[in-house]
């Protein structure tokens, strides 16, 4: 993304070129810029790609230039709705760029960069000069605007160039200080370029003073042209510009897309190889088990296929309720197997290994991943908590997600099979993941959401509410523990933990629950925005029956009174 940012080009590409940067650090803008609205916003500094403060806008805003600007760049961030940018040109034409709303899954990448340049166009003598007089950012929701720069030519700073001989117009090389800026070109009398082009001004003067090199010489390296002093040569300038700018946004996106496709294809290929190897291995194992039995060859193959299919199904099953059903299915399998092998197969040979795999696999892997130091029995609870806290703090984000993924795979209902310390580690890991939600990718947030049994968008809401609401913070802290305790409850989610914690707080101090109000920042528009969708559903399940019951009781009362 750094490459895509509209960093100003500081090298002087065009004689007399001036680059102006506006960082919106205060409400005094640079000369030559007029902004129709907005206000300096320092509430979310260095967020949404901005640097320091930015310009906050929430409606159509025009940025007008007083100079003949031929290049602008800027950043627009935190836009939830579709928006557009319209450029107005000096020749009376205009151009509109439509953009869709930006994804808010990661605030650090929630911005678009804009770059419009007519440098190359204007440098071509065949074209009429084209300039940007103003541009308009059309947004409909709170937006940040930052890192604006623009370029134009200040004619007064362009040194006078002549077509007379160099000896009469240029200073002596020894009088000039080496500045290291290599933008000068020299040719020999046949129109051949100097081998060290581009040259600094001092190098250029030295070359000219040698009498072998001159300013621009038209021709194909064989003609003998007149001596002309020409400072900038267009093609070299374009090359320099390309090197400075790097690949365009489109090129970068294309490269990223190709790399992603190649990665996915490679992953699929490796997965296919692994699957094939596993299948072959499984087949060999089953054949070895059936080797001693007297079964016809065709039936053996059928039996092998059937067992493989059955094992695949067992691997997919992760829901404990279904695991409980497995023994029934196994009995059915036993019956089928018995029929096939004419009652010669021992049940234990076929059934027990499968059942064992299903029950032992999940928690074993989880405990392998959580490589916490052995906690001695004589440690106090505080010491154990300290060890766990240190362990979790040292985990990288990827490790945190790996553990959560394994928890999802294992099923939170099966966590009662792991040790209490591992449960506490999992709890701390879940807390850690929610606290560092901004560092997680969309896929990682999905994994966290799966553990909490909430929607992906709800994870962000929970992370925000932790800081504001003690009940939510406590619910996050105790989620894993309570989920394990309530593993038999159907559809037990994070919202259930929140309700439980709130009821406990109410029973502990009923009055405080109702009088401890903080109405700051609450408006009619955003009531309920800080609730997860699951919580809203649960509230509806309660509030609607309450209202209906009240209406029914009132009706009954009125009816009784009228009789």
């Amino acid at each position, binding site marked *: 993304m750094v490459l895509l940012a509209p960093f100003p080009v500081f090298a002087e590409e065009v004689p007399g070129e001036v680059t102006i940067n506006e960082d919106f650090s205060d409400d005094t803008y640079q000369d030559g810029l007029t902004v129709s609205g907005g206000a300096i916003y320092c509430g979310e500094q260095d967020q949404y790609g901005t640097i320091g403060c930015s310009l906050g806008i929430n409606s159509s805003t025009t940025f007008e230039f007083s100079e003949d600007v031929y290049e602008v760049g800027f950043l627009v961030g935190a836009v939830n709705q579709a928006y557009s940018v319209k450029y107005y040109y000096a020749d009376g034409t205009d151009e509109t760029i439509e953009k869709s709303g930006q994804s808010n899954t990661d605030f650090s990448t929630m911005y678009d960069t804009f770059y419009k340049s007519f440098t190359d166009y204007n440098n071509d003598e065949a074209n009429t000069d084209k300039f940007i007089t103003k541009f308009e950012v059309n947004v409909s929701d709170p937006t940040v605007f930052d890192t604006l720069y623009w370029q134009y030519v200040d004619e007064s700073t362009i040194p006078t160039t002549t077509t007379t001989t160099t000896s009469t117009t240029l200073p002596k090389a020894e009088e000039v200080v080496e500045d290291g800026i290599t933008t000068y070109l020299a040719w020999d009398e046949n129109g051949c370029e100097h081998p060290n082009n581009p040259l600094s001004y001092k190098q250029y003067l030295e070359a000219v003073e040698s009498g072998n090199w001159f300013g621009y010489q038209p021709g194909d390296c064989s003609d003998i042209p007149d001596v002309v002093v020409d400072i900038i040569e267009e093609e070299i300038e374009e090359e320099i510009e390309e090197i400075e700018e790097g690949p365009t946004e489109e090129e970068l996106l294309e490269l990223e897309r190709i790399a992603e496709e190649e990665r996915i294809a490679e992953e699929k290929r490796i997965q296919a190889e692994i699957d094939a190897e596993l299948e072959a291995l499984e087949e060999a194992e089953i054949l070895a088990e059936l080797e001693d039995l007297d079964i016809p060859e065709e039936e053996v193959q059928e039996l092998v296929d059937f067992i493989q299919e059955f094992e695949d199904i067992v691997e997919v099953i992760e829901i404990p309720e279904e695991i409980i059903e497995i023994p029934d299915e196994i009995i059915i399998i036993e019956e089928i197997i018995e029929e096939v092998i004419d009652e010669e197969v021992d049940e234990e040979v076929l059934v027990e290994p499968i059942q064992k795999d299903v029950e032992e696999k999940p928690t074993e892997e989880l405990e392998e991943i959580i490589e916490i130091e052995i906690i001695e029995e004589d440690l106090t609870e505080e010491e154990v908590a300290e060890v766990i806290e240190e362990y979790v703090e040292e985990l990288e984000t990827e490790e945190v997600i790996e553990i959560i993924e394994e928890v999802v795979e294992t099923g939170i209902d099966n966590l009662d099979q792991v040790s209490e310390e591992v449960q506490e580690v999992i709890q701390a890991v879940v807390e850690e993941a929610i606290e560092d939600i901004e560092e997680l990718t969309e896929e990682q947030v999905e994994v966290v959401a799966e553990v909490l049994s909430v929607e992906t968008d709800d994870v962000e809401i929970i992370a925000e509410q932790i800081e504001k609401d003690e*009940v939510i913070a406590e619910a996050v802290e105790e989620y894993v523990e309570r989920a394990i305790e309530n593993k038999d409850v159907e559809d037990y989610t994070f919202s259930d933990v929140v*309700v439980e914690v*709130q009821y406990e707080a109410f029973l502990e101090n009923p009055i405080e*629950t109702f009088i401890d*109000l903080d109405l700051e920042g609450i408006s009619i528009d955003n009531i309920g*925005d*800080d609730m997860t969708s699951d919580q809203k559903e649960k509230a509806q399940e*309660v509030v609607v029956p*309450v209202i209906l019951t009240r209406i029914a009781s009132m009706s009954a009362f009125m009816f009784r009174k009228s009789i």
Partner: protein
Amino acid sequence: MIKKIWNWLITIIKETLNLSWTLVGLVIATLTLTGSAQQITGLATIITLAVWLLTIGFRK
């Protein structure tokens, strides 16, 4: 004066008891909500109950 206040206290206790089931429902609803919705519902419940009790005479 004391008798008046006593009578009024008895009346508001009666009225509150009449509203028992409704209040239970509203408390449950409040505890099921979180964030701003919970705050607004809790506040609305208290204010409405207060207004209800203060306007007993007027409603009669």
